[in-house]
């Protein structure tokens, strides 16, 4: 809650025009848009909570659940699609036991990451992996798991 307040302090006496920038700041600070945040923003901008949620849920950027420690983004751009990103996604989900969200990982398909020349591409947190093959996907997951298991 204190984080939300600090964000709102930066936007004193602002109009609705600032709704999206406020939500973006909140998300970059706490990682997702919580129900509390929606209520607080609505109160701050004097607009109904339903409208705030309507805007937040319209855009891909806003998420309503926190991410796991390793956020895997599988690029679903055209270039990656042609080079088989669908199979990579399926493989990753299979490696995590058929789940898209585990304690350690959350997987999502995202729009073009802009590295089409080296498709297919995945991004784990801020690190890119290019020209990913099924074997590479397995190795990546294995090495992260090993890193986490290490004392």
């Amino acid at each position, binding site marked *: 809650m204190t984080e939300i307040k600090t964000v709102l302090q930066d936007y004193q006496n602002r*109009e*609705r*025009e*600032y*709704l*999206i*920038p406020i*939500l*973006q700041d909140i998300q970059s600070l706490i990682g997702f848009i919580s129900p509390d945040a929606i209520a607080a923003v609505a109160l701050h901008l004097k607009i109904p909570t339903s409208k705030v949620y*309507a*805007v937040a849920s*319209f*855009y*891909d*950027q*806003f998420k309503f659940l926190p991410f796991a420690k390793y956020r895997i983004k599988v690029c*679903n*751009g*055209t*270039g990656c*699609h*042609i080079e088989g990103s669908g199979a990579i996604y399926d493989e990753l989900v*299979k490696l995590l036991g058929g789940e898209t969200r585990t304690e350690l990982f959350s997987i999502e398909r*995202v*729009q*073009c*990451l*802009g*590295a*089409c*020349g*080296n*498709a297919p*591409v995945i991004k784990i947190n801020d690190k*890119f992996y*290019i020209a990913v093959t099924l074997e590479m996907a397995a190795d990546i997951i294995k090495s992260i798991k090993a890193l986490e298991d290490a004392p």
Partner: protein
Amino acid sequence: MIEKGQDTGLTGYLIEKVLKNYSGDYPPDVKREIDLLLRRHLRRPVIYVGTGTCGIAAGADATLKAAKEYLKINQLEADLIEVGCVGLCSAEPLLDYQAPGRARVSFQHVTADKVYEILEECFHNHISDEHVLGQVASEGHELWHRIPLIQENPFFKKQHRILLYDCGEISPTNLDEYIARDGYKAFLKVLMNYPPEEVCNIVGQSGLKGRGGGGFPTATKWNNARLMASDKKFVICNADESDPGAYMDRALVESNPYRLIEGISIAAYAVGASKAYIYIRSEYNLAVKRLQNSLIRAKEAGFLGENIFNSGFNLQIILRQGPGAFVCGEETALIKSIEGHRGTPETKPPFPFEKGLFGKPTVVNNVETLINVPLILLHGPLWFKSIGTETSTGTKLFALTGDTVNTGLVEVPFGITLEEIIYEIGGGIKNGASLKAIQIGGPSGSLVPAAHSDLQIDYEAFHKRHQIIGSGGMVVMDENTCILDMIKYFINFLQKESCGKCIPCREGTNRMYEILQMITTRPKQNDKHESLTRFQGVIQLENLAKVIKETSLCGLGKTAPNPVLSALEWFREEFEEHVFERKCRANVCKNLIEYVISAERCTGCMVCMKKCPYDAITGAPLEPHLIIRDKCTSCGICYEVCKFSAIDFI
């Protein structure tokens, strides 16, 4: 007069000596300074690392670090600069080396482990051709022996780079370097000499058309807004590039953000706006960061703010990050999004130039369009008209992706043919395969079959064929691509991105996707009627597409059926194959295939049973196994693992 610029020393000096010197003859001290900034004259060696997003994805960050370490270990003096993208993404990471008095050499695929070896050779004045991409010929720099010229590289040879000219050479956020390269010269010229009307006229004479997809004459748009009486007007730069497979705008912003800011400033002056917005995709972290820094620097130097250079013109540029919605590429939806609403389009008229942002006259221009503007004012409309065709002037950027040997960002003059782009610039199709089709203009663009690859790129030629050039995505598909799978991918994208405001688009794209899904999966019953019902689906698809095209509210809906219609036009036989023969000639639609185990050849080894992820195979040891049809998803794993070739597909 330029108090704000003085704190940075050099910038203020350059503004006085270069920008306000209209004769173009510089005294020796200024010339020396410019030569240093242009790196015509070097004090010490320079190492350039391409750190655009595509470079970073390929590992340029590590390359940069390795280069830094190399210099430190060997205690060498050199300038290490980060530059934008030259466009050849398939060769990333790129590292360039330039010694004083020698030509600049470009190296390709320079991952961190190769840096030491390459730089060690460079600093010992020896260049082996192993990693070399080419050298850049320029005046006053001695060429290296036996190293090919980059200008002669087929990827660059056919290109006409005016927008990309500085990309990969200029340090993106260095304002001094930008000024030394004639940056802001056009803006100052306009500010001091031309009334807004004149600016619109010059841009009108050049024939510049909107590069975002519509191809609407830019000057007409500006004039319409300029002539509106209003206390406030706005200019919006649309940098919400969300077409999958397109990244022209990102590369332009990352490589040379000041040129965009200058373009926006000129547009705002021409229209009479004192506030401008840049609406950029929030995923473009690096582009956002570089723009933020550049906006601050431009303001410090006095190019933005109140009463710019005592001209009485005020301009504030606000950066807004688009939170991710494809439909916000539509100008009315984009305006709604800036206002803090859901990005749903509005009916036109009223057009944005009448009632746009906050109900005021607004001009929305694409990044590429605005970047052309300073160049037109600097070199004149006649120069711009000399490039391209009579009616489509200038150049167009394309993000060439897919199955060509070279992929990346290419800038070509209008009038070039698709063949030239694919076979000369793109280097042909990868792995010796043959070309099948080209998708131009993103998901709602159109499919061009290989037989029509002699198509000329200009607005008229495309218009005649009821096709659009779009914003610049160009996906090349080889024979191993299934057209139905591609179409399904595009329609799936569009149905997800449909904002839901109007029914034809919301429900129509959904239904189109369902029909395509049905055609590309195995039928539930295996009789002849089933095939006929499925074929009826194809006919419905065609009708549906026409209705969506005619009745949707905005550009997204109106263009959404394009891929379906063009696929039906050129690749109808593939639809028929999928329906009647249940055959996918590219072997991509795996779900279409039905697997059966041959009782004669099956030895009952149980390998397939164990490997089947869906428990769809039953049987006892040493007895022929059986695939349970209802459980099977046709993943094909059993086919791959069987050592006795006992699995057939029908």
